[in-house]
């Protein structure tokens, strides 16, 4: 198993958000987690990435044979966990390229691989940036500062391309994108699908799943998975709305 979440309970500020979530994914699988606002989707992504303030009160998460919850945030990244964030942060004073170089080399160092020099980094980044329509001018700008919603999400996908994770979690990657931007981002993700790489696509809407077709769809409501099925479940949710599906399964 690539990811095995068992009876996960997590609280934020003393309030329980995840209330016994269970889910497992094999290598190469793409799973979607859908759910209404406030169901715990983002909490799940933050718990998997290790964000402080998200307290796990019960259950376990096993990633590629390791106890994921025992690992530091940066350790998870170096071991191949990547979270594409819903709201990537803006950091004035750090250029995008410097950030990418620092992150890439930190991960390589943690894995005992040799660091890349400035020239090789630039080449490495350039090769992967073109398909996402990220040009050098964008790489020279401060990280995410003044980027449009689409640019921010494209940069998240570029990072996924550079870091080559084993497990990618995409948190509402479709939010705030118009149809063209959505297509560009989704194609970028789709191109990263390999038999080894697993992806957990968290989304409120079905439309992203037209481009990234999932092997399995889970419905999250009130901190638990209340329904699961094939890709057709996403269409059903879109047609009937969350309320009906959640009611039927409850």
């Amino acid at each position, binding site marked *: 198993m690539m990811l095995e979440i068992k009876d996960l309970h997590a609280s934020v500020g003393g309030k329980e958000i995840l209330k016994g979530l269970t889910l497992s994914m094999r290598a190469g699988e793409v799973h979607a987690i859908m759910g209404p606002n406030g169901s715990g989707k983002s909490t799940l992504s933050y718990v998997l*990435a*290790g*964000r*402080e303030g998200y307290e796990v009160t019960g259950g376990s998460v096993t990633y590629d044979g390791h106890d994921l919850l025992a690992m*530091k*945030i*940066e350790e*998870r*990244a*170096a071991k191949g966990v990547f*979270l594409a*964030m819903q709201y*990537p*942060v803006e*950091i*004035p*004073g*750090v250029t995008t390229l410097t*950030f990418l170089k*620092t*992150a*890439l080399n*930190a*991960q390589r160092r*943690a894995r005992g691989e040799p660091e890349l020099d400035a020239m090789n980094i630039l080449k490495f980044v350039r090769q992967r940036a073109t398909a996402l329509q990220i040009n050098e001018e964008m790489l020279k700008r401060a990280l995410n500062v003044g980027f449009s919603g689409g640019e921010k999400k494209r940069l998240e996908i570029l*990072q996924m391309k550079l*870091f080559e994770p084993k497990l990618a979690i995409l948190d509402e990657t479709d939010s705030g994108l118009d149809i063209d931007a959505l297509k560009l981002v989704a194609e970028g993700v789709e191109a990263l699908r390999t038999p080894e790489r697993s992806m957990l696509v968290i989304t409120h809407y079905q439309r992203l799943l037209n481009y990234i077709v999932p092997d399995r769809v889970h419905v999250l409501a009130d901190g638990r998975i209340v329904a699961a099925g094939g890709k057709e479940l996403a269409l059903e949710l879109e047609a009937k709305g969350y309320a009906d599906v959640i009611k039927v399964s409850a």
Partner: protein
Amino acid sequence: MSAPREARRAEALESFRVRGMPHRRFEHWRYSDLRAVLDAGQVAQAGTAHWQIPEPPAGVELFDLGKDCAPDWVARNLGNVGNRPTMEEASLAFADGGVALRVPRGAQIAKPVRLQVSAAGNLRVLIVLEDDAAMTLFEVHTMDAGLVRNVGVEVALANGARLTHVRCASPSPRSFTIEHIAVEAAANAHYVAHLANFGSRLSRTELHILLQGEGAEAHLSGVTVLGGELHADVTSHIEHAAGKTLSTQLFKHVAGGRSRAVYQGKITVREGANGSDSRQTAKALLMSQRAEADLKPELIIFADDVKCAHGAAVGDLDEDSLFYLRSRGIPEREARKLLIHAFLEEAIAAVDDGALRDHIWQDVESALPRAMEAAK
């Protein structure tokens, strides 16, 4: 020493004797109570600090203030620039030396003039730039031992003159370090200063800048990086005394351990200084709960038709940014460092000369480990 110089020194001595050491009851010495840690006798007996200009560039006239027979430009200016605050009077009264530099009319000195200041004691520095002359002064301070250093710097800028003044003071945990910089800028003269402060037991850098000619400009920027029990106070007073004068200030402070970083920026726009524009920003990052930052912008306006803007903010490292960087595999310490760099970047980027900028970044780099330590 010439009679007028002697007379001015006697006057300074008397003025210091009457006013004594500044202390916290004076509003602008509130965060740096000098009298509580040092008495007038210790300043009087501190002797004279050392200065050195390893390679004076061609085109710059240099006079050693320890010598007699000062040329007219020295005699005329020494002790006469600015409004004679008490510690500056002390440095004039007690320093038996120092250096005066003059750049003649229209001369542009490309290479920065490196002035090294070391050892304890009082010291005087006089910079005179004639019409349309330009120079960069790179003042490097080190102090490993000794109780007190008190430096008085005077800068007289004639019409259209441009001085870039970069000052780097390495940490002096055992000493008290005081510097007063008095600037008078005539029409269209520019004074550009960058102050990199790494603190001492009590470090005070005070600037008094008089924009007295139309179109005169002052641009101040600086960084302070402190840890342990270090203290650094940057206090500026810019007076817009003529129309269409411009001043900008950008200060970034990082304070860790139990250190204290102070910025006080007072702007006075005098009556008739219409069309003046002043902007000031001061920000501080606190790296520990025991560290302190005091930021105090102040505006006093007697003219109409002026633009004044100021802002001050104290905070700690942004948790969202830290999480973002760590989630990309950057270890926590490195991520914190990257964010501190990002915070300081804007203020250091204000230094045009690449080599001086690198020097400041290196000093920042050496000061960061201490600044990133939590309070003991």
